[in-house]
């Protein structure tokens, strides 16, 4: 059972006015015209990745990483030859990170390069199509 004093309403009016000013502005036309990224959800835990889609069209690819594990993990995207294209940095337990890259058609390696996590199983691939 909850009872509030109605007098708080007037105090609320002041707060409402303050908060109204905090509502973000509408997105700009430029932002709307920008080519949308294809998002790949990735879950990390000891010691594997779950990749929510295995292939994407070429262009801007956004990786949404969530660490469901107990240890810190990262996500590194590299070419098959081992050239690193981008990395999230270390993501703590229960935390998230976003990595956005422009990818040409081909196959890319996704690994966690912390300690020996990749050797233990945290490695997978992503196919980028034409």
């Amino acid at each position, binding site marked *: 059972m909850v009872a509030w004093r109605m007098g708080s309403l007037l105090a609320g009016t002041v707060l*409402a006015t303050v*908060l109204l000013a905090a509502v973000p502005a509408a997105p700009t036309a430029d932002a709307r015209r920008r080519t949308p990224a294809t998002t790949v959800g990735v879950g990390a835990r000891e010691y594997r990745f*779950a990749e929510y889609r295995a292939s994407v069209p070429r262009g801007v690819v956004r990786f949404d990483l969530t660490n469901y594990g107990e240890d810190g993990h990262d996500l590194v995207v590299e070419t098959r030859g081992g050239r690193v294209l981008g990395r999230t940095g270390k993501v703590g337990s229960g935390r998230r990170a976003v990595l956005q890259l422009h990818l040409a058609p081909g196959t890319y390696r996704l690994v966690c390069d912390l300690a020996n996590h990749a050797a233990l199983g945290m490695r997978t691939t992503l196919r980028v199509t034409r």
Partner: protein
Amino acid sequence: MSWTDAHVRRLFWRAGFGATPAEARAWAKRGRAATLDWVVDGPPGGARLRGPAPNIRGRRLDPVNVWGDDVLWWIDRMVRTTYPLQEKLTLIWHDHFATAQQDTPLMLAQNRTLRRGALGSFRALLGAVTRDPAMQLFLSLADSTKQAPNENYARELMELFTLGSGYTERDVREAARALTGFSSRYSTSGLVSIAYRPDQHDDGVKTLLGRRGRLGPDDVLDLVTTHRRHAPFLVTKLWSYFVATPPSAGTVRALAATYRRSGLQIKPPVRAILSHPALYANLDAPDLVKCPVVYVAGALRTTGTYVTQDYATWMLEQMGQLPFDPPSVAGWDWGPAWMSSNSMCQRFALGNYLVTWGRPRVRRGSAPATLTPSQAFQRAWSAVGEPPVSGATRATLEHLAKHFFDDLDPRWRDTAGWRGEALQGTLRHLLLTCPDSQLH
């Protein structure tokens, strides 16, 4: 029992996410029995989604991959469904069978399972949840083997899902043995399957809740759901989601009898709870706190606002109820616990979004400063879906409207439309966030 707009609003809020003014009037005319049938059974042909699909600044939702889109996807269902009770029960089962920290595709699959079984057989739902990959991984039932039975699922099955009490530590150990045998398989891209492997199952003799035999997973589920403590436990839990005051012993007995007679179907006791006079007590003084999900989805639905922004996800996280991420296997703490200072601040902020982006936003030229306080209140009240408002709230808001222009020279009042619109925005915001709006 008489049947008025107020009865319809109470039922629609408790069983779903509120009533629009048109719904309240139409169902008040059609009467109590017809309304209850529609609410409980849903429309002929099943649930449909009505209105425009979510469009977030030109982007369609990608619930599997984009963080937070899973939440928006579900909120959208609550806003647009023609069968709100099904979504409410899906939310209730998400709390009852709380699962978290699992990959989004698995959580969305579990959500579909909960929705499919929301109002059917509890035994069937329990069987589906027991085999659900997200639950299996969350409570370590997957890969619990005869060599090393894991007790997590067996314990929560009895404590939280079916009985509450009346079992022993030995029952937990024996149930854990009987539930062994589910085995997971992974590829480099994630989970492939969880399958039952008889060679990993302990097929020895167990004694569980007084029954002895070579018990397997389904025997465990049969034993806990036919145990004398199960029906009172489950109907009491269901009641707590719909009515703030605890049920009497007689009510529990009657609901449990209804549940058992139906063969452990969920719909009959839910129908009995939604028909119970206690649900309609004190129509002008509601006492059940809206949980954040119901507050957000209800505010959108009753104001005719669709999902076109992504604020619901992070606001629900700040309000303390992010769907697909309950705090523990025991689910969320309900009732007044929802009303923390931070949560209330976010509820206030939601009002800002609704009067800025939603249907209740004030159009230029729509609210002259020359309206009387009563007219100004009426206009704001209509714009936010005619929510239930106490006499005290109305008096306070009309007082605010009366003095809103005190600093303005009366000669300028005719041309001060912008001040009239500011008053409308304030009144609409307060109607969406005032104490009356936090309860249902």
